[in-house]
């Protein structure tokens, strides 16, 4: 049992301050265990999110000693105990209360994404795909939507105004996932460059470093996307080549309209 001071941010959109909770830590405990004990014993109204307590749902993201972490996967014995353990809400998103932030920005960006539009299935009504072809997409589908990559990305962390036209690393991997999906027919590259702010990313790789799923966000998604987008806009020959090869891909405008047109959504059932 070690004695630790937990310094937890308390407050709401109006403001707040850190509050110290001295506590005993038992063997094997994670930060979320300690936060839960504080809730149960000292501060029942201490707000935090959690669901799975196993690193699978991405609910419990917070900044521990200044860096984003999942509280449920951060063992207390990995943190220095001489100093207070500082727990703050994610900085990039507006605060609701205590450790809970308003992450609706991410849901809004996901809404603006032109959806998956599959090609026709095979004669037996099902699809054939090789393991090697689904693996690229599977890497990105490991994302648990903890939004810690969005939190650390300086493009929106330090510039609120960029949120209007910047999808952020979480969504970049989603674009790349669809881009590499063996069945998808939508072309989102123009949209990505013009409205989703891919150009703002200057490949600092901070997002990759914080990803709890170890997704290589920059190397496997952002950099290849940048290349493809450049292809699409500056190299008409290559672009035309792709168009012919992947004739079924749609243009950005078609892609954007796709979601709201019930006819096309129906068609993909």
């Amino acid at each position, binding site marked *: 049992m070690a004695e630790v001071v937990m310094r937890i941010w308390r407050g*709401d959109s109006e403001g707040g301050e850190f509050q110290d909770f001295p506590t005993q830590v*038992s*063997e*094997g*405990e*994670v930060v979320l*265990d300690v936060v839960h004990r504080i*809730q*149960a*014993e000292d501060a*029942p*109204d*201490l*707000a*935090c*999110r*959690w*669901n799975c*307590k*196993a*690193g*699978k*749902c*991405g*609910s419990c993201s917070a900044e521990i000693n200044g860096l984003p972490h999942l509280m449920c*996967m951060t*063992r207390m014995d990995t943190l220095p105990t001489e100093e207070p353990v500082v727990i703050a809400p994610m900085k990039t998103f507006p605060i*609701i*209360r205590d450790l*809970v932030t*308003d*992450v609706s920005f991410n849901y809004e960006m996901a*809404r603006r994404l032109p*959806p*998956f539009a*599959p090609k026709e*299935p095979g004669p037996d009504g*099902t*699809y*054939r*795909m*090789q*393991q090697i072809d*689904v693996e690229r997409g*599977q890497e990105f*589908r*490991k994302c*648990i*939507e903890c939004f810690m990559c969005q939190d650390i990305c300086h493009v929106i962390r330090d510039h609120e105004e960029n949120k209007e036209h910047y999808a952020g690393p979480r969504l970049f991997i989603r674009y790349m996932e*669809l881009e590499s*999906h063996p*069945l*998808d027919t939508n072309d989102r590259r123009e949209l990505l460059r013009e409205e989703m702010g891919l150009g703002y990313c200057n490949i600092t790789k901070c997002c990759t470093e914080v990803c709890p799923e170890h997704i290589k966000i920059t190397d496997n998604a952002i950099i290849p996307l940048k290349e493809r987008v450049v292809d699409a806009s500056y190299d008409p020959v290559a672009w035309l080549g792709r168009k012919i090869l992947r004739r079924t891909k749609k243009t950005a405008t078609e892609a954007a309209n796709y*979601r*709201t047109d*019930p006819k096309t*959504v*129906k068609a*993909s*059932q």
Partner: protein
Amino acid sequence: MAEYEQIDFDVVVIGAGGAGLRAAIEAKQRGLRAAIVCKSLLGKAHTVMAEGGAAAAMGNVWSEDNWKVHFRDTIRGGKMLGNWRMAQLHAQESPDRIHELEAWGALFDRTNDGRIHQRDFGGHRYARLAHVGDRTGLELIRTLQQRAVALDIDVFMETKILRLLKNPSGEVSGAVGYHRPTGKMMVFTAKSFVLATGGIGRSWKYSTNSWESTGDGHALALWAGADLIDMECLQFHPTGMVWPLSVRGLLVTEGVRGDGGILRNSEGQRFMFNYIPEVFAAETADNEAEADRWYEDHINNRRPPELLPRDEVARSINAEVKAGRGGPHGGVYLDIASRRSSEFIQRQLPSMYHQFKELAGVDITKEAMEVGPTCHYIMGGIRVEPDTAASTVPGLFAAGEVAGGLHGANRLGGNSLSDLLVFGRRAGMGASDYAESRTSVTTVDSTEIERIIDEARAPLAREGGENPYDLQRDLQETMQNLVGIIRTGSELTQALSEIDALKERVPNVSVNGGIAYNPGWNLATDLPSMLSVCTMVTMGAIERKESRGGHTRDDFPKADPALGKINFVQRINGSGECVVTPEPLPEMPDELKALLEEGAH
């Protein structure tokens, strides 16, 4: 006067796990105004945690597989207590529901010829679980979530429903709740409602379930006058983590055993060979050599006893530990390290690998895991009509873990995810049909709404009362100790009186802080459903004087064939009392009975 916002839809789905999302998608595709209400953010429901896979007899790995074998496995695994029609629909429709997910963007693991790969799981005769490594639930929920977003379904996140409302003619017409971030009260009116609220495991001390699994949907239905069935049938998963204490109960997927892992006691003995029950003797290997050959050749060998249905394995582990053959933390050993290569384990079971590495400091490619039973899944639930998912109250439908019937007395692994898809869709169809043909008004009574709001807010106004967390802890102790994996009559009666005593404490609960995002207050509003549901589980357990599936009575250790034909129906009667009534199980048609015979396929 309490203030609230009122919104109207055609169909309102309560719950955003696999079942709720699938139901809402169905209603929206039909062109109805559909909404989803859920307690957490979208994509975080319990379904996200499912690991091993979704069972569907696609026959991709073993062409011998088909819906009839799946039907048989489900009914036999459920110890004959399952609803035959649900088991039939489930077995027949699961393959289409899995393929449909692919058309919505899911990327399942593949076979060599490019089809969806299927893995072995307990109680399934053939490798039948479509999966993505060991994160199948994430794939399922994300695919449905993205589909729901593409269809522009209205989602009310972090909103908890407290009560259902009926119109004067007794049809469910509204739901009262609150938005957790702001505390704002909300009233939803609609022509039909779907309950898809998941499980009840939060009331046990060691559980795989999240804070959301407080049995709200079971309670909402019960309070609205609906029937529940067989709530005593609760599944304890055989393999939960036991150490460190802070993660005790966390799930270790059955996929570990499906992929070759075996169970040993502290003496190194592969003890499951000593616990093969008569009914499964014909299909279970009785020696290690045959069991090991089975992984390569399912046709000429019988399956390893580690892959018996969950109730058998959980009871056996319990017995080994009781007999003093457990490990240092009260579990037994689950060993895949000595059986499969490190690469294989990391590829097939990546999240188990990380879970043990990061939380317990154990490398499962090198050492055995210590595991023990943990409260996992409720087989019992809202009584539904199989084809439409209609409850016994007009306008109210239910699907997923909250609905009863399909799994009988014991659920097979992988059958839940497919259940969510098959009956989520059917609930969406049933609710849409109902909404389209409904002509009566959806008027709700404002004085009733105000009474519900006042009651919910009362703990905030009270001072110096009891901490809701203390009540929750005491309930968890009671249920863990007295209504756990092995039960006896005297302990169950004691549990009932302890639950009653806890109910008396509820009106004295007080919480400090405001109404916005206040977990203490949120918990205070969960307590009534937890207590109602625990009462029903305990009463059912008292009535079922036999051992069957997930329900084991020390004082009635055998299955009673007469009770195997009985559903215990649980409801609140006209004078407000909880009652349990035995009712005969629907009779299975002869042609389906024939499928249950050994060698029928």
